[in-house]
């Protein structure tokens, strides 16, 4: 004691000159960065530091964030913003010692520390280039986690579904949003749908494959420091892929156990972060893209229905170009259903009429008004809403059918005519003219872009080339302020293919 008494001026001098930080907080300025899988290279401010696991030592005295990045060939780079915690107790000690130690502490990196010794980072595979974005509706996350069970600990606190860490499970939409975030910037266009609603079912049908995530179990081992969580969150997920056409038909499922390293997250974010990670890890599953693509393609083929073999009509004869359009309008009809009308055209002399799926809607029959003034009752034979084409049959013989052209051969700037019944049935068989503006692909579907006037009621009418042959089905136009002359038609080859129509030779 006497010795201590004798040395207190020395101790006080040491404290005041070296600061409190180096005495109270020394050795906590480093963090071990671990990547999963290991072997990534850690960069700081763009400079390579070394392969992981790498012990990064904070070497700044301003407490500012450090931008680290994990890079690895074939994986998505992970950016890490590391902000050390300032030890306010040191500032308090400085203040209580008349601020003198702050002369040293203010410049000391030891004023700051990292709360955890190990920072584990999951790295995800980069999406290979050339993949098409797949439409993937996702239903609300389901859970079979027992509502009363203990699912882990945060320090000494038991965690159950009432804990703040699992709040998102009480709001499944929030949890679902987290899974959707995990699929962002991958090969799927994931969006939430509600099944058993007209819109949800339509989205599912269009996508052909629907993801129904199921949380089967979870285990959290956490510690909370400074209102931040550290530890691990393990999820047992079953990713169930259902048919979008046959609602309850399970196509395949993937069971996956994932571990999310929690480092400095607000406790309420733990589950959402873990779900996001689990969803992103699912996207890395070998062969998943191919499986979804194949099922989607199979679904599209199913939309085509049974093959129909038709006899091609003889090309309409017209002595000169002047009489071409007056001859062709005879093969164009007005399609009337209870909700309105559209256009259509005869593709065979025995009464097969092609139109748009959105013209017939859900109607089983349609009234077909011909240019010659008579009306026939038509049966809707086939509808492919994915490609917006439909086939109607009326009874008849020797009807004035149009002949099919070659949309592939259509050149940019080539002349196109549209014939249809825009706006009002009184305007039946109106003819407009324009050019082929481009060939487009929208959401995986091919379109002919044209500046031919396409107005409501024109839908389903033919787009005809300069030789008088049908090259497309007028389908839609862009309708917005200041936009003019941007219309689209389904190429005739696509329309025939998607209705599974085969012409005999």
């Amino acid at each position: 004691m006497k010795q201590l008494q004798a040395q207190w001026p020395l101790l006080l001098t040491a404290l005041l000159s070296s600061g409190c930080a180096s005495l109270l907080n020394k050795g906590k300025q480093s963090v071990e960065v671990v990547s999963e899988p290991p072997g990534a290279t850690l960069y700081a401010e763009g400079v390579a530091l070394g392969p992981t696991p790498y012990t990064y030592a904070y070497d700044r005295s301003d407490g500012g964030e450090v931008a680290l990045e994990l890079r690895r060939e074939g994986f998505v780079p992970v950016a890490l913003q590391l902000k050390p915690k300032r030890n306010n107790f040191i500032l308090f000690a400085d203040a209580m010692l008349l601020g003198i130690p702050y002369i040293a502490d203010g410049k000391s990196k030891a004023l700051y520390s990292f709360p955890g010794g190990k920072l584990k980072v999951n790295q995800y595979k980069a999406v290979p280039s050339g993949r098409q974005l797949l439409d993937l509706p996702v239903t609300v996350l389901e859970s079979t986690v027992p509502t009363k069970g203990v699912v882990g600990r945060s320090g000494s606190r038991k965690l159950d579904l009432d804990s703040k860490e699992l709040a998102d499970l009480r709001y499944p939409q929030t949890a679902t949003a987290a899974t959707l975030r995990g699929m962002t910037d991958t090969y799927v266009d994931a969006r939430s749908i509600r099944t058993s609603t007209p819109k949800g079912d339509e989205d599912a049908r269009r996508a052909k494959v629907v993801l129904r995530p199921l949380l089967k179990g979870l285990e959290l081992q956490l510690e909370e420091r400074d209102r931040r969580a550290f530890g691990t969150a393990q999820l047992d997920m079953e990713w169930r892929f259902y048919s979008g056409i046959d609602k309850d038909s399970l196509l395949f499922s993937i069971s996956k156990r994932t571990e999310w390293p929690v480092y400095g997250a607000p406790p309420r974010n733990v589950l959402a972060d873990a779900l996001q990670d689990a969803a992103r890890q699912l996207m890395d599953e070998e062969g998943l893209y191919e499986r979804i693509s194949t099922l989607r393609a199979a679904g599209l083929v199913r939309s085509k229905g049974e093959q129909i073999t038709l006899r091609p009509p003889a090309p309409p004869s017209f002595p000169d170009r002047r009489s071409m359009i007056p001859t062709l309008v005879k093969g164009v009809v007005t399609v009337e259903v209870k909700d309105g009308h559209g256009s259509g055209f005869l593709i065979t002399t025995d009464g097969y009429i092609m139109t748009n799926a959105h013209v017939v809607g859900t109607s089983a029959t349609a009234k077909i008004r011909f240019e010659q003034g008579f009306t026939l009752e038509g049966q809707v034979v086939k509808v492919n809403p994915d490609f917006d084409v439909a086939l109607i049959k009326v009874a008849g013989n020797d009807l004035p059918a149009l002949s099919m052209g070659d949309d592939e051969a259509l050149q940019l700037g080539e002349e196109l005519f549209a014939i249809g019944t825009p706006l009002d049935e009184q305007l039946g068989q109106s003819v407009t003219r324009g050019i082929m503006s481009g060939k487009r692909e929208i959401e995986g579907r091919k379109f002919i872009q044209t500046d031919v006037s396409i107005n409501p009621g024109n839908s389903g009418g033919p787009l005809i080339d300069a030789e008088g042959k049908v090259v497309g089905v007028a389908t839609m136009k862009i309708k917005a302020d200041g936009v003019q002359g941007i219309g689209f038609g389904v190429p005739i080859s696509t329309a025939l293919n998607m209705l599974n129509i085969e012409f005999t030779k």
Partner: protein
Amino acid sequence: MRKIFSTFVLACAASAAMAQSTAIRFILAETHKVYQLPKFDNYCMGVGVDRSFNDRLTLGFDVSFGVGHALNPTGQSVSLRAGEVDVSASMKPGLLSLNYHTEYALGDNGGTHVYIGTFLGLRRVTQKWLDDGMAYYDGSGNLVTFSKPADVSQWLVPIGLRMGLRGATDGGFMDLYGALGYQIGGGKTLVPNANEGRYAETSALAVTLGLAYGIGW
């Protein structure tokens, strides 16, 4: 590679504000206990400068002057014991206070907060006796002259704890503070024959109360 997948790791959100700022403070009212008696009778005003190094730690220096006594030309009436008779004499006390202080804010010092810290001061206490000479009649009816006490001054070095409440105002702040500590040099008798003890002895206990308005940038 579509996009960098970003993970944002925040070890501590509380230390986000690292504002450094300097402020000038105007001490609107301050009083110090420098004598055993009276406890607080000096009214001081002054100016100071504060420097915040981050959202927690502030150091400051200020100087204040006892304007209450300085503006009173007749001084304070002090009762003195002269032999067996009490006499009254006029004395002008003076006080100059230099103060260095630290503040540790218990919340973000960018807003209203309570702080705690320490202070170290230097105080110059003076007494100037105004009456040149005094005379009185003793018990036998003789007129006796009495010399005024000599002018005195003393340095005090207060050190101790300081705490306060600082509230943000539009473009500035108000600071209500108090300090308690030990006054090195206190406890010394300045006027041995002070009858009621007023202004007789400096205090070893340092107490300060004050109110300041500051503008910062």
